[in-house]
């Protein structure tokens, strides 16, 4: 370039001596580092001693980063002023020529830009300015100042439409197809290069900004943001070594818009305080080191961290550390997590946390302070939850500790409790027994191990104990009729695997002053819940049991079984059930008038009932010898039986003493759904007859 300027100078000087009025130089092909021009023709025409007209034509300009060459470019400077100190062109036009009619050789010229330049010979300083011109719906101006030791460029764009810009650029350069951007931008870019360092300053605004990768996992929409960026790169004179790293500091302030970074969705609402991201980093071809970043969402949280990424030869996240402070859960959950984790619960309280991620070590922790977790359907809630929850991919004994002052499960209030456990990889394990006081008793989980969390082959095992809870307190808490007795149990190992819950041993429950023994249990947990179980009843106190119904009081023991019970979606498919007065009954055996009355009304009334009712009014209670009923359910039909067969039926109540009352059932088969309807009407047998 210097040689060409010298040539122009020489021609200018020579023209004065030789009285030339026009010079045309046909330079053919000109090749310089970074560009190549073909069929270059320069023409100078003197207007007077200090003014020339410059015309420069380039048939083809090849730039390495453009997929197509720029063709038929023409620069016209009608008044190029020259003197021994400088050349100046106050206004020049850059055209793109194109032939509109090949045969007539008509040329159409399109003005690309209007520019001006000045070259000061002694300090060898070039000043170059592009006047505002329309580009992609907005406009652009640029200014370049260059001298022997440095050059500076300043570019201003106003209301540039990124979609239009990219469409125009796509003609010349290959744009990435896996990432799209759209929206408007205005920005000011300054580049200053000295012999030691290149400095870039950028300030700009984004409106209606939209971006997305091709899979839609990283996207933003309707963003309004301001960006400031300062970047520096030392100038290396050693061409054999890789380029020195860029050092960048940036601040991105987002006033509104939506951001989706799978699976986190953030809605930044205006006029809420703006969200700000400040970053300081170093960038080379092979590495990206984020020395610090701070993400501030006012009144919601502050995230600070560092990150080291390997970019080549293959992408790798070498280190990521993020520290969460001032996490206000009441706002954080709905703004960041709700679309991912659902809106079934509301969370409040404070949290801080930490994430450490490297190629081998993965770790996170969350500290909760006075947190409240409330299910919106009022199934459960935990209040004043405090403690540390942490997870590690390798360490096996990293304790998490949570405590709460109040909780509830449906209408059941739970007292303060605490739990200590470890959460490693896909495993969760209680580190010590967890006792949750319930009413006047407690449930103690002695052991709980969970494996393969989040995987198809999830497995867990639980064992524990239910220390006595009085039925009175339980029934009051559940809002039912007041009951007597107590509920307690040793919970044998319960094992869940292959989508099936099963009992490793017999489960014994103390209920209604007797024992309920679950001998087998298999629960298939899928789209359809399927239960196989067998239950034995031993000396259930009928007086306690009948108190919870309006059926009428019956005294005595009741024992029996429900074997081969098979439920699908909690509806019985088959079972063999029989409940009767045990041989070793030690309680008085009486049945109340009301209970007999209900039994007698099961058949739907009639003459027999009228007679019996008149007789029943005389007595309050009746003695019985045995009471019992059985049902074998197969194919929707219940095959019924009693304590003993009669000639035509079976005894449901076999009387004892005087007055003797027998309740006899005659129907041995009944449709199960029909039987259920009768039970709902406090009816258990069909057509009983009182003798």
């Amino acid at each position, binding site marked *: 370039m210097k040689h060409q300027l010298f040539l122009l100078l020489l021609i200018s000087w020579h023209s004065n001596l030789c009285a030339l009025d026009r010079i045309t130089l046909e330079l053919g092909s000109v090749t310089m580092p970074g560009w190549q021009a073909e069929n270059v023709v320069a023409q100078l025409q003197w207007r007077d001693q200090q003014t020339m007209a410059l015309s420069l034509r380039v048939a083809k300009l090849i730039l390495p980063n453009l997929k197509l060459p720029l063709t038929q470019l023409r620069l016209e400077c009608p008044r190029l002023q020259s003197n021994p100190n400088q050349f100046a062109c106050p206004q020049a036009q850059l055209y793109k020529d194109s032939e509109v009619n090949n045969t007539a050789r008509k040329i159409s010229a399109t003005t690309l830009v209007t520019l001006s330049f000045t070259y000061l010979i002694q300090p060898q300083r070039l000043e170059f300015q592009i006047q505002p011109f329309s580009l992609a719906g907005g406009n652009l101006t640029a200014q370049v100042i260059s001298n022997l030791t440095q050059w500076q460029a300043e570019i201003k764009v106003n209301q540039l439409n990124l979609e239009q810009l990219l469409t125009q650029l796509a003609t010349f350069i290959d744009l990435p197809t896996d990432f799209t951007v759209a929206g408007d931008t205005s920005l000011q870019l300054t580049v200053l290069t000295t012999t030691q360092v290149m400095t870039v300053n950028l300030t700009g605004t984004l409106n209606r900004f939209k971006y997305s990768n091709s899979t*839609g996992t990283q*996207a933003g929409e309707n963003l309004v943001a301001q960006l400031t960026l300062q970047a520096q790169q030392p100038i290396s004179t050693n061409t054999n070594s890789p380029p020195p790293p860029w050092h960048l500091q940036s601040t991105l302030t987002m006033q509104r818009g*939506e951001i989706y970074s799978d699976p986190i969705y953030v809605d930044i609402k205006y006029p809420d305080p703006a969200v700000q991201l400040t970053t300081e980093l170093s960038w080379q071809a092979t590495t990206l080191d984020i020395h610090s970043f701070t993400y501030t969402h006012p009144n919601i949280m502050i995230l600070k961290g560092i990150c080291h990424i390997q970019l080549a030869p293959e992408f790798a996240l070498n280190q990521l550390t993020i520290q969460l402070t001032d996490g206000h859960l009441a706002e954080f959950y709905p703004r960041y997590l709700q679309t991912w984790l659902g809106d079934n619960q509301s969370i409040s309280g404070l949290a801080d946390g930490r994430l450490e991620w490297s190629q081998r070590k993965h770790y996170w922790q969350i500290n909760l302070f006075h947190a409240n977790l409330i299910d919106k359907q009022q199934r459960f809630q935990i209040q004043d939850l405090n403690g540390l929850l942490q997870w590690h991919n390798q360490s096996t004994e990293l304790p998490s500790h949570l405590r709460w002052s109040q909780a509830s499960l449906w209408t059941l209030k739970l007292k303060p409790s605490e739990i200590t456990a470890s959460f490693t990889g896909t495993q969760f394990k209680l580190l010590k027994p967890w006792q949750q006081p319930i009413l006047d008793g407690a449930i103690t989980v002695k052991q709980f191990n969970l494996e393969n969390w989040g995987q198809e082959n999830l497995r867990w095992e639980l064992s524990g104990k239910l220390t006595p809870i009085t039925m009175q307190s339980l029934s009051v808490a559940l809002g039912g009729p007041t009951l007597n007795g107590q509920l307690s149990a040793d919970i044998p190992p319960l094992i869940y695997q292959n989508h099936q819950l099963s009992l490793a041993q017999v489960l014994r429950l103390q209920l209604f002053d007797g024992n309920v023994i679950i001998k087998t249990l298999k629960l298939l947990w*899928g*789209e*359809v819940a399927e239960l196989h179980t067998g239950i034995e009843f031993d000396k259930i106190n009928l007086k306690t049991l009948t108190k919870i119904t309006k059926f009428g009081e019956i005294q005595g023991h009741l024992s029996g079984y429900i074997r081969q019970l098979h439920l699908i979606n909690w509806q019985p498919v088959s079972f063999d059930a029989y409940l009767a007065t045990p041989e070793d009954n030690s309680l008085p055996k009486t049945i109340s008038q009301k209970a007999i009355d209900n039994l007698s009304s099961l058949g739907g009334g009639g003459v027999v009932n009228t007679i019996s009712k008149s007789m029943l009014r005389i007595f309050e209670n009746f003695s019985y010898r045995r009471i019992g009923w059985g049902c074998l359910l197969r194919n929707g039909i219940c095959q019924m039986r009693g304590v003993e067969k009669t000639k035509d039926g079976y005894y449901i109540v076999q009387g004892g003493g005087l007055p003797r009352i027998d309740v006899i059932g005659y129907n041995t088969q009944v449709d199960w759904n029909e039987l259920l309807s009768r039970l709902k009407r406090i009816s258990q047998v069909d057509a009983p007859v009182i003798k």
Partner: protein
Amino acid sequence: MIKLKPNLRRYQALILLVCLVNACVTINVYFPAAAAQEAADRIINKVYGNDTTPPSSTPPTAPPTTSQINPESSNQSTTVWLMPIADFFITPALAQANLDISTPTIQTLTANMTARHQKLLPHYNSGALGLTNDALITLRDPNQVPLKLRNEIKSLVAQENQDRLKLYREIAVANAHPEWEANIRATFAKRWIDRATAGWWYQNANGDWQPR
């Protein structure tokens, strides 16, 4: 009336015995394609919420042969009266022609998919979701889904595919032919697409996406 001699009767009995032994009675239970298509259409009808009888892509025909009798040609006359005997044995095989889709699991899966379909429908219409050629669905154009709904739609797509795979397996198991799962899935793959509304996107056999 011809009275056969005892020796001749003995020979005839012997010939009959030989014929019974030699007559090659092969009972092959083939995948009942027409019945599978009918079953698929009944389920798809419920899921898509169509009350009309689906158009059949293949004319309804008698169930495919579920038994094949290959007697030796030399025993032609024997096979004529052996047919009722063979039919007696192959009756259970013919019974497989009607696929059972009434099990609680299939009913529950169908109900789940039907309820879910109402949430997926706008995204089929927008082209965000597409029907794959392997009887599943996919989020083929996530940019058609508002950012706020992306997690929900991704979750629904995962649940739908999980249910569909369970459905194909369950139909095969419920009909005592687990080995039919791939055939049932292939049948559904075709019928999901055949029954799709105009404008929905689907994946053709080459894996290319195109609208119905």
